[in-house]
Structures are given as C-alpha cells and as structure tokens.
C-alpha cells in the first residue's frame, strides 16, 4: 500500500527514479554504504554526502560518554538507520500495545490522531487546516518546511548554517545524527518579521519524520520573532529504541526565538539530543523543554551568548517514572559583556525513577557585567526514587554575577495536611502540590499543551500514589 504524504507541501516530491532506488535495502546496522545510499535516495548535493561521511568516521572514532545515563543496552548493530518512505507500511491498529491505546483514551486524544500517532495511518484530517496556515507563512516570507526539502529548495541558505553550531565532533550522537539524519524542520524568519502563529512541528510530522535522527535548523534573522512548538503529550510509540536528534538555532541581533518541546517517550526509547542556540546582540533565545518518559534521556539545551545584551533562558521539567532516567539540564555560555541567562529546572522522580540535573554556567573572560541565575528543584515522590543535582559554574570574569539555588525534597507533609484537612483526598492533594511545583513551566506552554500537560500529570500521578 503506497503511503500518501498529505502533510507536505506541493513542492516536495520524491523526484528519484523508483526503479533505481527500489533495490536499495536498509537492514540493521550502519555501514558507509548505508550513508551513501541515504544521500543517494535524497539526491543530495556532494557537500552533504561528504559531510555525512566525515561524520561517520568521527562516529566510529568517538567514545561513548563516560557520564550520564546508562546506555549499555544500546546496540548500534541492531538499529535500522533509515526507513524508505515507500516501505513504511505502518502497523495495524491491532498491533498497537494496549497500554498505548489506554493512554490515548485517558488523554482524550481524538480518534484520527490516535491512529496517526500510533503509526497506523499517515492520514491526518487536519490537512485542510495545515494548508491555510501555510499560506499565512508564505505571505510573510517565512520558510517552514522539512529539512530534506529545504536542502533541495534553499541549498545556499542551508549550507551557510548547517553544522555551524553543532559540529559532528561535538559528541558521539551528534556525529551519528550528522551521518544519518533524515527529516526534522527547517525554519527561516526574515528580518523584522513576526511569525503570526506558533510553528507547530505537529503539522510537519509525517511517518518519516517521526523517526529517530531528525535534524532541525532554525534561523531567526535580525529583529524577527518566532515560536516553534514540537511534540505532544501522547506517548510516542517507536519500535526503534534510539532517538538522536540535533537542533541548531541562530538568533540574530534583536531577534527572539522560543522553542517549546513537550515529549513523552515510550519506555523503551533512548532519547539523546543535542540542542544548541547562538544568540547575537540583544537577541533572546528561550528553550521550554518538557521531558517525560523514555528509558533514558540525555538533553542539555544550551545558549551561546556571543554578543552584548544577548539573553538566554531554559525552563525545563523532567519526570522520571519506573525504570526511567532523566539526565537533563542546561548550559549557558556567556562570551560577551552584559549578557544574561536564567535557568529554571523542575524535576520529579517517582516509582523508582531517577532524575539528574546537569548544568553549566560559563563566564568567559569577556563576559563583563554578565548575570546568570539558576534555580533547580527536585521532588522525590517516594522512597524508591533518587535524584542527583550536579550544576557547575565556571567564572572567568571579575564583574560577572552568578547566583544559583537548588533544593531536593519530598512532598511537604505540612502542605499535604493543609489540603487534606480541607477535604481533598491524598491523591488529589498530591496532584495539586505537583501541579504547583511545575507551574512555572506549564504557565509558559501554549494553551492546548497546557491542558494536555495537566491531564498527563494527573495520569502519571495515578501510578504514583497509594
């Protein structure tokens, strides 16, 4: 059954000769041939093939990280690194695990979305909605497409920025992504343009992009404003256990960019992501990052504040349940005077889960008058769960100011008593306390997300109490 691609724009079409590439097979494991075939199928320019192959060499040479989540169960030889669109048959509704179906039910996900999210159907009835939104963007000159298309349609623009923020050598998983990346979003907002709507990656997702090695590149030109939103609170079911994405963002002078992610990965997934932004003069970059689920997540959104007046913010939550390890945090690199940064991190570990906050604030010698503020709090819900908080600061300038505070506690007994004595059940009281704990995060989410977040927390807490 051929899979239609209703979400993609008219310009994007598989231009290759089906005859040639149909013989290409992608089984498990990664070889040089795999990378060459991926590039061939996508009909990429030579520089991208060279980029991929160079990255592959680096991937082979680099060691696994000596810190962070336990990745010993990750078997590179068993992973399929590319799925040809024509082969992506999807699964039948019967094959979807009952737990996933239950979650959809509880979260009130509409039926059409359920099938889509479960990879059963690539049809999505919002197609009409999508197209009209797309028109709005085109009128303003905003480019919002998938990265494969962008490489074809805007090659010079992509080439100028691709890989400049996260080089392949950065870490083993950035190297892997650089070699086999497929899908992801490309956004360009022209000078002084404000995006009329949040750029929802939801509409960009097709069964190919739900894949493991997304590469996202966002450029906010001078004075522009954009808000990119990805993810959803429904569990992302994936038979592949490795999700290794790279997101590069350039925020030019006076521009502002916010990137919101809320993802709830199924418990078999290793979610290892490199997210990095660079902010220029008086530019602002904000990461709003919600991490729920997955077997192990390693993600440290960072902002390089490289010119005077640049501002960075990371607001993140991490919820680790049974058998899960959320190893997350943030990095703020102050390389110019009068730059400011804020990090707010809220973590919850329950049912034997583990959360680790790992952060860095760096003041280079040039960061005169820079200011950084870090607040990381953790709730350990029960006596099965654990938490580590490992922030670090590196101060290389005498007039920079750094303030950091962190607490680790259980749910306050006084607060519980106060609420239960007013008629709430213990479960309701606990949920309320948890909602209050993550409120700085949920208040920043777009409305529909916030509603779903609340429902998700309610759902997650049910497992935790009693």
């Amino acid at each position, binding site marked *: 059954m051929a899979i239609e691609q209703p979400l993609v724009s008219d310009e994007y079409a598989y231009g290759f000769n089906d005859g040639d590439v149909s013989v290409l097979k992608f089984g498990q494991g990664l070889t040089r041939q795999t990378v060459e075939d991926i590039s061939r199928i996508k009909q990429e320019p030579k520089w991208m093939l060279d980029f991929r192959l160079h990255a592959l060499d680096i991937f082979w040479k680099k060691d696994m990280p000596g810190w962070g989540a336990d990745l010993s169960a990750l078997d590179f030889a068993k992973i399929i690194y590319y799925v040809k669109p024509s082969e992506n048959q999807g699964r039948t509704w019967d094959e979807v695990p009952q737990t996933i179906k239950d979650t959809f039910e509880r979260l009130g996900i509409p039926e059409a979305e359920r099938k889509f999210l479960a990879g059963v159907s690539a049809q999505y009835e919002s197609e009409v909605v999508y197209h009209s939104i797309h028109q709005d963007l085109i009128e303003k000159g905003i480019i919002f497409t998938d990265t494969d298309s962008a490489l074809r349609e805007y090659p010079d623009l992509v080439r100028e920025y691709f890989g400049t923020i996260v*080089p*392949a*050598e*950065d870490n083993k998983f950035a190297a892997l992504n650089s070699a086999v990346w497929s899908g992801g979003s490309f956004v360009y907002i022209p000078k002084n343009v404000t995006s009329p709507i949040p750029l929802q990656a939801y509409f960009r997702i097709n069964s190919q992009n739900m894949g493991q090695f997304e590469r996202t590149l966002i450029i906010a030109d001078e004075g522009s404003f954009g808000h990119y939103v990805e993810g959803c609170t429904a569990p992302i079911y994936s038979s592949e256990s490795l999700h290794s994405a790279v997101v590069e963002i350039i925020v030019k002078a006076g521009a502002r960019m916010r990137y919101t992610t809320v993802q709830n990965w199924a418990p078999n997934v290793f979610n290892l992501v490199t997210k*990095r932004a660079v902010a220029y003069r008086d530019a602002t970059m904000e990461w709003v990052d919600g991490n729920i689920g997955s077997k192990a997540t390693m993600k440290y959104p960072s902002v390089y504040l*490289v010119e005077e007046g640049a501002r960075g913010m990371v607001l993140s939550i991490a919820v680790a349940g049974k058998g899960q390890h959320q190893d997350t945090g943030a990095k703020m*690199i102050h390389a110019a005077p009068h730059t400011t940064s804020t990090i707010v991190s809220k973590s919850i570990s329950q049912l034997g889960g583990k959360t680790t906050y790992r952060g860095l604030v760096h003041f*280079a010698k040039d960061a005169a008058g820079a200011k950084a503020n870090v607040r990381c709090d953790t709730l350990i819900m029960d006596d099965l769960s654990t938490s580590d908080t490992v922030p670090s600061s590196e101060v290389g300038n005498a007039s920079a100011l750094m303030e950091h505070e962190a607490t680790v506690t259980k749910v306050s007994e006084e607060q519980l008593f106060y609420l239960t004595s007013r008629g709430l059940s213990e479960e309701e009281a606990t949920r309320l306390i948890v909602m209050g704990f993550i409120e700085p995060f949920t208040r920043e989410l777009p409305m529909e997300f916030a509603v779903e977040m609340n429902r998700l927390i309610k759902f997650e807490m049910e497992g935790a109490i009693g």
Partner: protein
Amino acid sequence: MSKWLRIASKNQLQSGQPLLITVDGEDLALFRVGEEVFALDDLCSHAEASLSEGEQKGFCITCPQHGGQFDIRTGKAIHFPAISPVKRYPVRVEGDDILIER
C-alpha cells in the same frame, strides 16, 4: 621578562601536521603551513583536550574533542563550541631552528 627559546627544529615539523612540544612543563602545539610556523597553547580553551591531536586544514585547527576550531595565526576561536581564544606565542625561524618568545 620574555626571551626567545629554541624549542624545535624545522625539519621536525611537517606542513599540515601539528606537533606537540613541552617547554618548562607546559605543552605547546606547533603548526606549519608551507614555510610559515605558528605556536599556540596546546590546551584547548573549551575543554581539557590537546589541539596538537586535532586535524589541521590550512590555517584552521579543529579540536578533536568537540570540534571547536581556532585560527592558528591568531589563536582566535572561529567555530563553536570554542568561544575563547587560545594563547599564541610569537615565532621566529632562524635557519633550521624554531624559536618562540615566552
């Protein structure tokens, strides 16, 4: 008080192949492009890594640890994640001798 120290001979250093030299307990990285010689601190400004183990392309050295890049002529950081410069030492070549000022 700085002075000129002979630290290596020119025929030890190949064009495009960085060389690690230790002077007074400190590591320096030597680079050659054609007949020109340059010297930088070997320690990358971004992390504890050795620049002399990286790949040199023309006047650009890539740190093998995270891919940061520096201009070997000035020590300036030219590619993320490197942002702070690396110390550069003035170099003089006299015949076969390479001297640096420290």
